[in-house]
């Protein structure tokens, strides 16, 4: 009897607890998601969602102004060039890190050295910086080997970490005196000055940010107390959660069919995001047959851009893309909105193919798309169909990201063409073009072209040392033309994203934040957003 009553009690309490399940949440939350896994280390971040985390948790010396208003100081009060190879930045005073420590020039130097010594993330932006020194507690001096025009813009990506806090939590590691550079510590802790603190970071599941009440710029009165970023959630699940009010901001990677369905829902708004970014089908310029410019031109002219554009249609009115006119994209210096897009011409393509020294029937093209982004598959298929028109045989592979980044480290293993999306890391064309197309930059996912064009190299080198803006525009437009003339790569379309957001957060504060920033990851500035 005793046994039975015990079970009855348990069962009863179970039923009661299930029935009475309801909660009143005291804290406001914004939930968002991303296909990839997140990185919370300021020296390692590189991707879209990593940027979101870092921009909210750390601050840099400079920031992007809204609506393309250029660069503005953030942790700095201003900067000057005493000579073309030197940049002095003066720091804001009294800014506090999450630990309570106060920001000074040593922190900036330490952050820079940490980034460069670890050699990951955005360290590639600072290749021409020779040294960084603290002139005094509130001035930092950057010395470059040559005049380096994009430096200030690049500083947006130098997240400043709390030197004392990180050093106090350093363990033995691969970096000599610097131990592990706080690598282990910064996996799940934040040592920044940002508007949010990292409270939980599981790179495979979710990242949780909580409000930093001491933030020096303050928050929107209705800014969320907590932000949850979830990783690799199925689109159907996201849709369900959005409709149930259990998710606020979706990633930008939802399939068009889902977006089309969401556009009919009242509880969800689609926010159009014009962003400096583009989809490309990156041709491997060093592997036969695409080491011959004629073969590249042939495929460039054979590619069916109209069909591709059609593939971006969500509904009759909404198209998640804009025809591409080259490497320069909206929001980046030098972009010309009036430049005509690239068009298909199959007759010309066949004529070019005839000039190519390779016989297409001898080649099986190895075309790839990134398996994590199913969105990209049709564009690889389109290329396959068009390549076959030219007489090639072609296979299409969905490559997992990790495998792609491994294969791309040697040009022999890099696929003949890979669909990749590239977003502008900073609003400067150098960061975009030099990293992708300079012949010295082969071997990363961004430079799957293994471009090897002396004319282009010369222009790109000139562009980064030129400080006159008007001249720079000319140089980069010329470089853009070389890109097209020599068919360095195939531009699929420029980026227009539609990000569904729930009515929970759909308001002018949130939407303007979403739309008015250009740099990758900058648009999810949670402190400026509002929860209804």
């Amino acid at each position, binding site marked *: 009897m005793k046994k039975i009553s015990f079970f009855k009690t348990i069962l009863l309490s179970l039923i009661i607890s299930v029935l009475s399940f309801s909660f009143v949440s005291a804290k406001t*939350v914004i939930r968002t998601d991303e296909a990839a896994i997140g990185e919370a280390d300021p020296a390692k971040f590189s991707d879209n969602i990593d940027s979101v985390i870092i921009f909210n948790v750390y601050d840099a010396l400079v920031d992007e102004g809204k609506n393309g208003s250029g660069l503005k100081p953030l942790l700095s009060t201003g900067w000057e060039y005493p000579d073309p190879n030197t940049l002095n930045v003066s720091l804001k005073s009294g800014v506090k890190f999450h630990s309570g420590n106060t920001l000074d020039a040593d922190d900036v130097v330490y952050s820079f050295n940490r980034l460069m010594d670890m050699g990951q993330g955005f360290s590639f932006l600072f290749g021409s910086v020779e040294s960084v020194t603290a002139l005094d507690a509130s001035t930092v001096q950057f010395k470059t080997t040559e005049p380096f025009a994009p430096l200030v813009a690049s500083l947006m990506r130098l997240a400043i970490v709390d030197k004392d806090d990180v050093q106090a939590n350093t363990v033995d590691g691969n970096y000599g005196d610097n131990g592990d550079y706080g690598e282990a510590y910064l996996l799940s802790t934040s040592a920044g000055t940002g508007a949010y603190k990292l409270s939980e970071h599981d790179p*495979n599941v979710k990242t949780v940010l909580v409000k930093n009440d001491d933030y020096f710029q303050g928050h929107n009165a209705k800014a969320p107390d907590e932000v949850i970023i979830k990783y690799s959630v199925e689109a159907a699940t996201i849709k369900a959660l959005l409709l149930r009010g259990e998710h606020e901001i979706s990633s930008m990677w939802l399939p068009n069919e889902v977006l089309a369905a969401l556009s009919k829902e009242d509880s969800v708004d689609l926010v159009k995001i014009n962003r400096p970014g583009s989809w490309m089908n990156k041709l491997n310029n060093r592997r036969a047959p695409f080491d011959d410019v004629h073969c590249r031109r042939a495929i460039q002219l054979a590619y069916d851009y109209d069909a591709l554009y059609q593939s971006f249609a969500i509904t009759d009115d909404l198209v998640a893309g804009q025809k591409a006119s080259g490497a320069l994209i909206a929001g980046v210096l030098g972009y010309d909105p009036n430049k005509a897009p690239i068009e298909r011409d199959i007759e010309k393509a066949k004529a070019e193919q005839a000039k190519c020294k390779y016989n297409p029937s001898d080649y099986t093209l190895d075309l790839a798309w990134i398996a994590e982004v199913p969105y990209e598959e049709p564009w690889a298929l389109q290329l396959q169909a068009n390549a076959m028109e030219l007489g090639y045989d072609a296979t299409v592979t969905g490559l997992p990201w990790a495998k792609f980044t491994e294969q791309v480290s040697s040009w022999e293993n890099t696929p003949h063409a890979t669909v990749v999306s590239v977003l502008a890391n900073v609003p400067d064309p150098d960061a975009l073009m030099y990293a992708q197309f300079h012949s010295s930059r082969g071997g990363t996912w961004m430079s799957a072209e293994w471009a090897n064009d002396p004319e282009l190299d010369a222009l790109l080198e000139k562009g980064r040392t030129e400080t006159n803006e008007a001249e720079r525009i000319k140089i980069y437009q010329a470089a853009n033309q070389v890109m097209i003339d020599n068919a360095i790569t195939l531009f699929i379309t420029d980026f227009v994203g539609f990000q569904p957001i729930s009515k929970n957060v759909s308001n002018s504060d949130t939407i303007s934040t979403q739309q008015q920033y250009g740099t990758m990851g900058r648009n999810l500035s949670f402190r400026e957003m509002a929860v209804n």
Partner: protein
Amino acid sequence: MNTLQYFLRRIFVSIIVFFGVSIVIFCLARLIPGDPARIALGPFATDEMVEQLRETLHLNESIFIQYGIFIEKLFQGDLGISTYTKRPVLVDIISYFPATFELVLMSGLLMILIGMPLGILSGKFKNSIIDNVARLISLLGVVTPSFLWAIILMLIFAFWFPILPVSERMNEALDPPTLVTGLLLVDSLLEGNFKVFGDAFLHLILPGLAIALPAIGNVARLTRTNLSDVYEKQYIEFAKSYSFSEYRIATKYALKPASIPTVTIIGLDFAFMLGNAFLVETVFVWPGMAKYGVEVILAKDLNGIIATALVITTFFLIINMIVDFVVLLLNPRITTKD
């Protein structure tokens, strides 16, 4: 051979199998081409850094030495660093395994609670309408891929009848209980936090069902066959002639022997369900071992892959030992058979 000896032997064999699995997975992981260090460090790493990581991971040693180091570390409870999450693998496993464990246990529970009664109904009323319906259900269960179940359940409960949660382990607005076992149901009960308990329980239902449905079919079919076999046995006739009640015959004389083969197969079903968890966790955003497993495999994270395989194997071996023990309880006669 007495019971104790039997179990010692059983454990011994399990340990051999465990090492066998470790060797198989280890060799697989190391012999196949591709540089895990390069993948781990990402696109911008220099050659020196890759070489340094290769050194740290002992990738330049011969495979025997690598295995030796691996086993030595294993006994120290050190599974190495995951190049995917960049954390110690042990941390990953501690945070993901309980979720999968809880889920598979739930599936096991559903499998037994639904599968056995379904099979009993079928076997008891053989060739009636009840039997045919039950058989159809179990057949559909068996032949439908788990991921299809997941999608169907997701469709039904996410869009049409939104009464059950379709993602994660608990509502994130609730405060999670203090971590003791990692099993939310247990931890919340320990704290007396019934709200979390109920919430976690609701979250378990759909993914648990998606994993269990194929196994439910299996268990139901087996129970049916065994039960009808047993009902044809003489001692049941005997019991009937003593005019024992139907219920008593069913529970006391028919069910116990009929359940032995079913219980035996449950061990294998658990292995099967663990596999299915790989498919279902992705759909229901379950932060478990399986989702982690898929990710580390894609990322060629050697330590992660080996650890995942070993944890799952160990779990499987333990479940099988428990199953053997239950079979022994049901029928002590089978002990000493060599």
